[in-house]
Each structure stands twice: as structure tokens, then as C-alpha cells.
């Protein structure tokens, strides 16, 4: 058994695709029309055959109360690995991305948490083993 796909709920799939590709730097993998929505996934440009992230419509009535409670407490919906959290923080801040947690180093891990503008918080993580 392998994990090949995970998902985040997004308010608007077109806006989400722009944020996840143009701002975060992922690439579109699948786009299949499904009525008013679509099956829409992105992957890492560094790993095009890797785990896909499904940008799932958030219009189920249970999604918003659940998500608002998580966001209120600063809890991320997903976590992405980067080589340098501080560099990503500086790059994304210039693109007006809002962070709820600035970069913080704790032992071998540096993390930061940003708002994806589509309803979710995302944690960036950098492992610095041996550093």
C-alpha cells in the first residue's frame, strides 16, 4: 500500500490552481471536468511522479466550520518540504503571502506556516540533520 494522493479543500479551484502553481511553484497534473467542479491535482515540479495534491471543492457544508476552527488555532491542513524555509519565507512574503508563523528553528527542524488564500494553512518544513 502506498500514499499517492492527498487533498486540501479549496474555496475556488481556479484561484487555488493559480496559488499552488504560480506562487508555491507546483505543476498541474490532472484536470478532469466534473460538472461545475473538476478533478484537479498538482504535483511537485521536483517530483512529477510523486504524491499528488487534490484541490478539492470546499462546498460540503461540514467543511467550513471544521476548517475555520483549525485555522483559528493555526493548525495546518498540509505540510510541504523545502530546502530553505527562511529563503521561501522571504520569497513568498514579497508575493504578499501571509504567514501565521514566521520561520522557527527547533533542533533539526525549521518550520513556518502560511495562508494559502483558499481557506487553509500550510506548514513549510526543512530538515537540517546534522546541522
Amino acid at each position, binding site marked *: 500500500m502506498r500514499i499517492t494522493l492527498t487533498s486540501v479543500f479549496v474555496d475556488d479551484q481556479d484561484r487555488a490552481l493559480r496559488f499552488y502553481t504560480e506562487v508555491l511553484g507546483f505543476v498541474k497534473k490532472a484536470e478532469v471536468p466534473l460538472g461545475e467542479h473538476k478533478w484537479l491535482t498538482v504535483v511537485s515540479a521536483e517530483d512529477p511522479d510523486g504524491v499528488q495534491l487534490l484541490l478539492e471543492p470546499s462546498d460540503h457544508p461540514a467543511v467550513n466550520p471544521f476548517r475555520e476552527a483549525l485555522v483559528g488555532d493555526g493548525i495546518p491542513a498540509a505540510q510541504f518540504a523545502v530546502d530553505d524555509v527562511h529563503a521561501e519565507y522571504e520569497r513568498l512574503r514579497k508575493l504578499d503571502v501571509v504567514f501565521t508563523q514566521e520561520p*522557527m528553528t*527547533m533542533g533539526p527542524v525549521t518550520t513556518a506556516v502560511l495562508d494559502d488564500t483558499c481557506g487553509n494553512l500550510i506548514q513549510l518544513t526543512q530538515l537540517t540533520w546534522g546541522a
Partner: protein
Amino acid sequence: MGDVFKAISDPTRRLILDELTERGDQTLFEICTRLAMKHQVTLSRQAISQHLDQLEAAGLVMTRREGRYKFHTIDTRPLEAAVARWLSSARRRPRPKEDR
């Protein structure tokens, strides 16, 4: 207002205050991460949230909402007020001489 001394009597709550002195405006998630990663505190978010409620009731933690996020910041004023009565009388008296 809750009891300041009761609020700081608990080691986890003192750790939370320690971490909040490093920077203000922390989410519950950031506080939980700091406690787990830096102090090996293995409490649930729910338990840490309750500790934060007690600190807030004692006036030692202030919360504010900014848009969809809730941030926590330390406020040491109740602590100063709580010990002021001893500090001010101590300043008026000479220091006790040490035993020879």
C-alpha cells in the same frame, strides 16, 4: 480575574510563558509545536489550550483575533502588580544582614 500565583504554579504554564517571551502573536499550533519540539511536552493540544485559558483568566496571556487567526501574547503586568506590595516595602527597608 484568576489567581496569578495559581496560574504560574504549574510548570507547563511557566514553559508557555517562557516561549511567549521569545515572540508575541503565537497561534495555539505554534505554542504546541514549541512545547513538543523544544521541551518534549507531550500534552494534547486540548490540554495546552486549557492551560492557555487559565493564563488568560489570570491576565498573563492576551489573545487577539486577526481575521481568521487567533494569536496569544504574554502580558506581565499582573505579575508585577502581584509582587509590588513586597518589592515596594523591601525598598524602604535596609537589606537584612547576613549571619556571621
